[in-house]
């Protein structure tokens, strides 16, 4: 392998590692600041929300994706465009509820948890909870109120990481947004 290609792969790897390592440092800091896992989970969700409400603009500017007509389209855009763009992975969209208002994103690999192991005293920590907040915040800015949670987590022993997303309601544009 030429030195050139080594550099290129190294660069790309190091890029995602910057985010992963920074995220790890954040979670570590939060665990120090707060006494219990539930609080840390809440903080991660809140921070994710704050990021999400701004990230959506960045996403719309970069992707030139038009308005989604239904929840199914939204799901596809999230999985195939957004996740790919920001995290370099494409989760699969499955487990649709009969009413079509709930689905799962299955992540075979979760870049946030590279090199991470949960110590025993943090069994209730939802390490990647920031993602839930990001999704919730971003969708709220496009008039969708959703509930997002982790149904499965490789860090807690499951085979895959599963994010469950449920559509709650359409947000009318003239109502004040957000609950934060």
């Amino acid at each position, binding site marked *: 392998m030429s030195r050139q290609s*080594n*550099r290129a792969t*190294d*660069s*790309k*790897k*190091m*890029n*995602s*590692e*910057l*985010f992963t*390592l*920074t*995220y*790890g*440092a*954040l979670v*570590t*800091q939060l665990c120090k*600041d707060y006494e219990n896992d539930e609080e840390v989970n809440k*903080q991660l969700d809140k*921070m994710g929300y*704050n*990021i999400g409400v*701004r*990230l959506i603009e*960045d996403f719309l500017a*970069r992707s030139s994706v038009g308005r989604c007509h239904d929840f199914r389209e939204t799901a596809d855009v999230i999985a195939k465009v957004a996740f*790919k*763009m*920001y*995290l*370099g992975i494409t989760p699969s969209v499955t487990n649709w509820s009969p009413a079509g208002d709930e689905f799962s994103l299955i992540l075979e690999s979760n870049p946030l948890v590279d090199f991470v192991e949960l110590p025993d005293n943090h069994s209730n920590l939802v390490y990647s909870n920031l993602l839930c907040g990001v999704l919730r915040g971003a969708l709220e800015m496009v008039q969708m109120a959703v509930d997002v949670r982790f149904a499965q987590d490789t860090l807690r022993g499951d085979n895959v990481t599963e994010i469950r997303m449920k559509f709650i309601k359409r947000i009318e544009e003239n109502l004040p947004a957000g609950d934060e």
Partner: protein
Amino acid sequence: MDVLFSDMADDALFEFLHMEIVAHVYKEHATRDDIDKERVTCISTLEAMGFRVGQGLIERFTKDCPTFKDDLDIMKFLCKDFWSTIFKKQIDNLRTNHQGTYVLQDNKFALLTQFSSGKQYLEEAPKYLAFSCGLIRGALSNLGLESVVTAEVSLMPSCKFMPFI
């Protein structure tokens, strides 16, 4: 502008995360009445986070790289390879007094571009540089150099990082 790395925008994600981390750290410590003490605590918390990340990055990055001739060689690596991988550009200017002091100048620092250029918000700038100072200190530490890193801004988004070995 992001033609370098196909469709990926992971640098944007890092920038958003960094902004939120800074906001969070300052919110957490905002209850203290002593402004100076609060600032020191916040800055050092951010710096410490950057330090750990800098160490981690170097661990992964230089596995296949040859060893460095001297300190200057290390600084050049930091300015070229390290900086461009993380911030998508190289350091614009490297100066040294050959006695352990270095000045790394970045004329368009990625984490400051969100602010309007000029002198507005100059007071806010140190908050957004602390993490990166730690990043440099951590990287140097894993490359065998202990240092103290400070930063200076006079005109956004240009700034200078000053490792003192």
